[in-house]
């Protein structure tokens, strides 16, 4: 089992950038990232990207993310910057004490290129680049559709849109597709199959290993079973918030040839030591029957890391890197 240290991205802004950007952009909802920032704001984000990529490289992570500093609206970002999407009110982000602008889709979800643009800049700064995208099911759940008319068409449209964005990516090693809504708002009968097909659509567009990463609990058994049908290389499980049910899903139904293990808490300042991280990964390996073999195990935080203050975020990145450095068995 080859252990690969990585994260699901969505990093906190460095503290000086928090101040610089809020001075440049403002505090109100119409001041947030729209996709056509002025040169000064763009330059600040370029600096932030360089800093975030640099600290992952210095720490020694095996996969390096762009950091998603521009994602003011977290996973809803690809839509909130889209030209045919209006941003509505500020709404709660899952059951967190965080808020984002409700993306109201009012026209066709045409190609945007926003994600590829950031990744191209990151690709100049590092090897081992990992892209991060919201999963089509989660993104459709976070948005309000006023154009496609029904859930089925909307989900398919979001999947096609994301596939188009992914196709435009520069060379990346891995694509993390984040699907928390599959856990928090499980798709109903029939919808579960379509959610899996939607993920498959996005995965087929990638010329890289694709990880469908879930968090904030464990997938319902049927949803998990359908997800196994998607053409992804790995499924990610959150062992921080629910290790028992996630382990059950893997041992009972199997998983893909590779796996992502969310073993570091992205939402708590308590920093896991490299030993603790290793123990958790070992526990997983020892708990799954030996007959089930794994190619790669992505060792990662369960969630994005913007929940954390900068010092603890940096320590967690370092701990993840250290946890895989000495052991590759």
């Amino acid at each position, binding site marked *: 089992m080859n252990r690969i240290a990585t994260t699901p991205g969505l990093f*906190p*802004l460095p*503290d000086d950038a*928090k101040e610089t*950007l*809020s001075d440049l*952009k*403002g*505090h*109100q*909802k119409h*001041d*947030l990232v729209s996709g056509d920032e002025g040169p000064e704001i763009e330059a600040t984000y370029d600096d932030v990207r360089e800093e975030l990529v640099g600290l992952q490289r210095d720490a020694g992570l095996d996969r390096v993310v762009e950091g998603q500093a521009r994602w*003011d609206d977290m996973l809803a970002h690809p839509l909130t910057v889209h030209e045919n999407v209006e941003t509505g009110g*500020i709404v*709660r*982000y899952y*059951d967190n*004490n*965080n*808020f*984002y602008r409700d993306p109201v889709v009012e026209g066709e979800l045409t190609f945007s290129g926003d994600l590829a643009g950031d990744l191209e800049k990151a690709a100049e700064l590092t090897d081992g680049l990992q892209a991060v995208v919201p999963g089509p099911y989660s993104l459709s759940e976070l948005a309000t559709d006023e154009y496609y008319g029904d859930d089925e068409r909307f989900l398919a449209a979001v999947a096609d849109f994301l596939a188009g964005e992914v196709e435009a990516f520069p060379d990346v090693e891995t694509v993390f597709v984040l699907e928390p809504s599959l856990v928090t708002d499980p798709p109903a009968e029939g919808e579960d199959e379509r959610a899996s097909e939607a993920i498959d659509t996005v995965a087929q567009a990638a010329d890289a290993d694709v990880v469908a990463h879930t968090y904030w609990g464990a997938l319902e058994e049927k949803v998990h079973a359908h997800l196994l049908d998607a053409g992804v290389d790995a499924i990610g499980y959150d062992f921080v918030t629910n290790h028992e049910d996630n382990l059950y899903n893997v041992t009972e139904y199997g998983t893909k040839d590779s796996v992502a293990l969310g073993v570091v808490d992205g*939402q*708590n*300042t*308590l920093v896991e030591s490299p030993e603790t991280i290793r123990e958790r990964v070992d526990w997983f390996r020892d708990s799954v029957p030996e007959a089930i073999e794994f190619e790669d195990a992505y060792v990662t935080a369960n969630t994005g890391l*913007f*929940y*954390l*203050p*900068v*010092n*603890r975020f940096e320590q967690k990145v370092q701990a993840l890197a250290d946890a895989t450095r000495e052991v590759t068995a």
Partner: protein
Amino acid sequence: MSSNREQFRPDGHDNDHFLLTTVVGSYPKPKWLDRASDLHEDPEASFGDEELAEAEDDAARLITNEHERAGLDVVVDGEMRRNEMVEFFADRIEGYEFNGPVKVWGHNYFDKPSVVDDVSYDESWLVDEYEFTASVADRPVKVPITGPYTLASWSFNEAYDGDDELAYDLADLVNEEIEKLVDAGARYIQIDEPALATTPDDHAIVGECLERIAAGIPDDVRIGLHVCYGDYSRIYPEILEFPVDEFDLELANGDYEQLDVFKDPDFSKDLALGVVDAHVAEVESVEEIEANIRKGLEVVPPERLTVSPDCGVKLLPREVAYEKMANLVAAARNVEAGLDDGTIDVPAAPADD
């Protein structure tokens, strides 16, 4: 009616009926106070602790008097000394540490503290604030305290097995603080639990916290619970079991869509009804507020109705905040007069005590 309510009726109150008027707590800070805080943080400006304390005293006196000028029956100092509703308390409780700001939304951040050890009581949190406000006020003073469930939920928990365990320990500290406030003369305490709105399934934890908070507190001390911006149907009627006198609810913002939630079963506590919106900068007219107050009378009779804004008003322009308070009081007095002379009926039947 809670037996401790009548003590807040002002001497010489004009009407037979009495609708208790008050505020939730926070009020816009005068710009000069923000400047003073900035100066205090600037190591090169010779503006020390004493100078800041003087500025805070001045602001607390000013806003307390502003509340009195608006005619409110029970006043607060507008929380002039508090920076943020979790930070302020975490700063004073042993066991907490701060690591830096985290995102709430966009470029709005919050110094979310971490609980790194068992929490314990050190210095008093609010006794000085209460004593000063009471000394400059002619009206009774209410003390808002961030509740233990919110203090626990809006912190990183590194030290306790569960957030419930942390909340219970914090509740014991809140109880200790309230005892000190009562010794200092406080008779009206409001526990703020906005976090309950985001995780309504935890109402039993909040209930257990309140049992600990209310333990040993004399009956003449009025205890209210403020919960805002949530789906009340998920916590009602369970909250009626909580050992508090009054629930302070935000309903104007949703245009009283949730009012019916509180009609079945009967609302058996006192109701502090939000009658002006804390997040809309237009000032509601007296007539509009009168109509809102009458919504409250659909739920409780006048002797159990308190009238207040939806929530803390600190985000409003100060002029707007003041006019909302003044109109709120004028509307309450008009409704009292209408109840006195029978032009306003009481739809809610008196409670069977």
